[in-house]
């Protein structure tokens, strides 16, 4: 069974809008990290934001923020004021800390298109 699920394979928005990308995950671990990455058309994979399971802080980095619902095993990425450069594929990833070498489990990704 998939441990990290991104239900939407594609999404499309207008420039200036706000977007929420959803991700659900399965783990029996208490301590884990969740990450959002963006895969560019150039091939580069860019780290966006991290949520630690033990943190109650609302993580934010620039136009990126997350909504972490630990009891529902859900983490959403919110991108505000969308720009054409936000187009790309967004991946959610889980790191269970029992794997202290940092083995990431990725979702299938959501491809985002921004219309000018």
């Amino acid at each position, binding site marked *: 069974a998939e441990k990290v699920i991104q239900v939407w394979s594609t999404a499309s928005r207008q420039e200036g809008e706000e977007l929420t990308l959803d991700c659900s995950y399965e783990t029996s671990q208490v301590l884990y990290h969740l990450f959002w990455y963006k895969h560019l058309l150039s091939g580069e994979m860019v780290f966006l934001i991290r949520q630690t399971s033990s943190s109650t802080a609302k993580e934010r980095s620039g136009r990126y923020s997350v909504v972490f619902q630990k009891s529902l095993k859900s983490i959403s990425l919110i991108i505000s004021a969308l720009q054409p450069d936000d187009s790309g594929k967004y*991946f959610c990833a889980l790191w269970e800390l029992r794997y202290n070498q940092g083995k990431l489990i990725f979702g299938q990704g959501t491809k985002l298109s921004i219309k000018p």
Partner: protein
Amino acid sequence: GGIITQTPKFLIGQEGQKLTLKCQQNFNHDTMYWYRQDSGKGLRLIYYSITENDLQKGDLSEGYDASREKKSSFSLTVTSAQKNEMAVFLCASRDRGLAEQFFGPGTRLTVL
């Protein structure tokens, strides 16, 4: 800051051929990873290495070899390329004190 480079950017091989992908990082990170990304799927871990000369199998190691002869470099070998091998191979590294992995630009493999 640092950078991860992957060579080549595009790799075209024949079915049955042995192919090598290279990755270099100048972050001085201890752990390095090789992932494979297929269209419509998430990244899957092939091999990783927690230090020089260490190798650990990931979920997708069959059909691949890896080599970590130096801390800064991690090579992946496709032992016998198959047509379903066509994918993007991503290298990543991580410092032991950090959670985030940093990725290279990828190598796109096409098997004819």
